[in-house]
């Protein structure tokens, strides 16, 4: 699971960076890292426009595989499942994260606050495969006891691991906000509900949007938990791609991957943009 760096902070001291740059071999290593990181992605994008079925031989530019991908029933269904799960998970995770962020930043420090942070951020620290196995076992028990099945379990699992991703930017935003703004509003006759609606919420909105987008992206490309928890007919796009790849890489998969990439890049860029627009 690609976990984007959620702390867009340039806290690295400048002079130290300069010294590091002067070290012999720095440029070479930097370039090597960039090439190994992005070259495969660039190759994937290029070959998604290849007219040929081969993923190693270039023949001609074409949108053929994009058309094929759009016409593929399996891909369309998987996309719909992905969007549904990510959408529901994003909404609920963002609501929970917002409430958690308000509770941890707008109250006086309390005993066990560190523990609360740890619990909220737990999905970031526990190996995902452990969470996946545990969730699978837990859901099996519930299913057996209640007899209820359906995609709700997958949505619930996604909601849970999306919470910390949504929580971090919202909390960062709230911690940046001056408490006296809310006091000033209360001083000017705003009731607690009005303070929240007129001041707190509009000011924390960029954080909420950033958190929601991050949660959406994280849910969209999750594999491990989805693979274990998702039942039949609950195939998300990454799981579908994984299944197809077992039968060899096709340019069609390249096309779908490229589209996923574009969506992620757009959302993450927006996230950085909103995160940096502070005042």
């Amino acid at each position, binding site marked *: 699971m690609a976990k984007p760096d959620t702390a867009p902070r340039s806290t690295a001291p400048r002079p130290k960076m300069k010294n590091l740059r002067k070290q012999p071999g720095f440029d070479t290593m930097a370039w090597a890292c960039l090439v190994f990181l992005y070259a495969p992605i660039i190759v994937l994008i290029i070959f998604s426009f290849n007219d040929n079925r081969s993923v190693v031989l270039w023949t001609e530019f074409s949108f053929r595989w994009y058309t094929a991908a759009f016409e593929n029933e399996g891909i369309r269904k998987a996309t719909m499942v992905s969007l549904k799960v990510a959408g529901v998970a994003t909404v609920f995770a963002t609501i929970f994260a917002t409430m958690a962020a308000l509770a941890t930043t707008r109250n006086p420090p309390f005993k066990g606050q560190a523990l609360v942070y740890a619990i909220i951020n737990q999905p970031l620290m526990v190996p995902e495969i452990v969470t996946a196995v545990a969730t699978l076992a837990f859901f099996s028990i519930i299913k057996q006891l209640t007899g209820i099945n359906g995609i709700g379990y997958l949505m619930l699992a996604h909601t849970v691991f999306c919470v910390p991703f949504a929580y971090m930017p919202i909390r960062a935003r709230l911690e940046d906000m*001056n408490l*006296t*703004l809310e*006091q*000033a*509003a*209360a*001083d*000017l*006759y*705003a*009731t607690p509900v*009005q303070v929240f609606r*007129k*001041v707190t919420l*509009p*000011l924390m909105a960029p954080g909420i949007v950033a958190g929601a987008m991050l949660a959406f992206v994280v849910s969209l490309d999750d594999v491990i938990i989805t693979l274990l928890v998702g039942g039949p007919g609950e195939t998300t796009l990454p799981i579908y791609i994984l299944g197809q790849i077992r039968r060899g890489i096709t340019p069609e998969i390249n096309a779908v991957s490229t589209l996923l990439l574009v969506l992620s890049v757009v959302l993450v860029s927006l996230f950085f943009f909103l995160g940096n627009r502070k*005042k």
Partner: protein
Amino acid sequence: MAQNGVSQGADTHKNMILAEGVVKTFGQGEHMVTALDNVSVTIRQNEFFTLLGPSGCGKTTLLRLIAGFDLPDRGNILLDGQEIGHLPPYKRPVNTVFQNYALFPHMSVARNIGFGLEMQGRPAKEISEATDRMLALVQMEHLADRQTDQLSGGQQQRVALARALAPHPKVLLLDEPLSALDLKLRKEMQIELKRLQHETGITFVFVTHDQEEALTMSDRIAVMSAGDILQVGPPKEIYNNPARRFVADFIGDINILEADLTSGDTQATLPGGARINAILPNSWAPTGRVNVAIRPEDMALTQPGADNAALHGTVQNIVYFGSGHNVHVALDSGLDIIVRCAGTSHEVGALVGITLPDAVQVLVD
């Protein structure tokens, strides 16, 4: 507002805020800090009242208790005869100008100013009229549609003032609002604040650690230290007749000398034998060794041995400060004092005589 201007003076001595036995502590157990220790104070209607003291003296805490951001542990706070000590901030007809202004960054200047009235649910027409009036009052009409982050410090200050005044509160609280401004702007705003207080007829409670600012603007000053109010009075009284040693030390330059006072005597004996009339603090009759305070400008240098020279010493240093000189003199009794004079013909090392004022203030420690 005009009506209020007219009624000014009529009720000058009516009490607006009455704090009685207010106690406020922060923290628990060993970390407990007493911010206000049984404080009582009366603030009159339509006065410019200043809480003056060093940081940590409790002046901001008292202001926050009046605003409602904190609640007192004990004691009552009455506003216009009504107990408000336990009401939330939005139920108190009191507005605050914050030290960092706390303007809403997502609203225009005009919406910031109209916010209080909007929250009170006033009609849109009334809000826009009041906003226009406030913009005019602080001379910001041309910037009504600006975002607040495009304003200079002085402009933000004016918007913060207009926003707090717009709902026409009974009391305006100002928490060191001038401390972020540069000296020239600060002087301008001091006069501006005084004008606004006069024009609106609203009671101002101003918090500052700057004694000069307090003396310039206030009708009355309360000097605070360590959670206690030491003295309340008009600026001249605070300056000329400090009752407590802390007040004397905190406000302006002052010389504190030891003197002897015998029971029933109206004169104190200074070291060297000079006798001088003593002003005693209210209802306090000390005897024996006391401290007396003399302002540097109330003394003058004269020839050694002159008839009017009550003290003698040697000039240690002469410091020029623009409008005069501070002459540091080491008294024969060993104490260093400062004498302020416009010009001086004396030189460092010279023997001088020092004349004293008619009377000196005796201080309570």
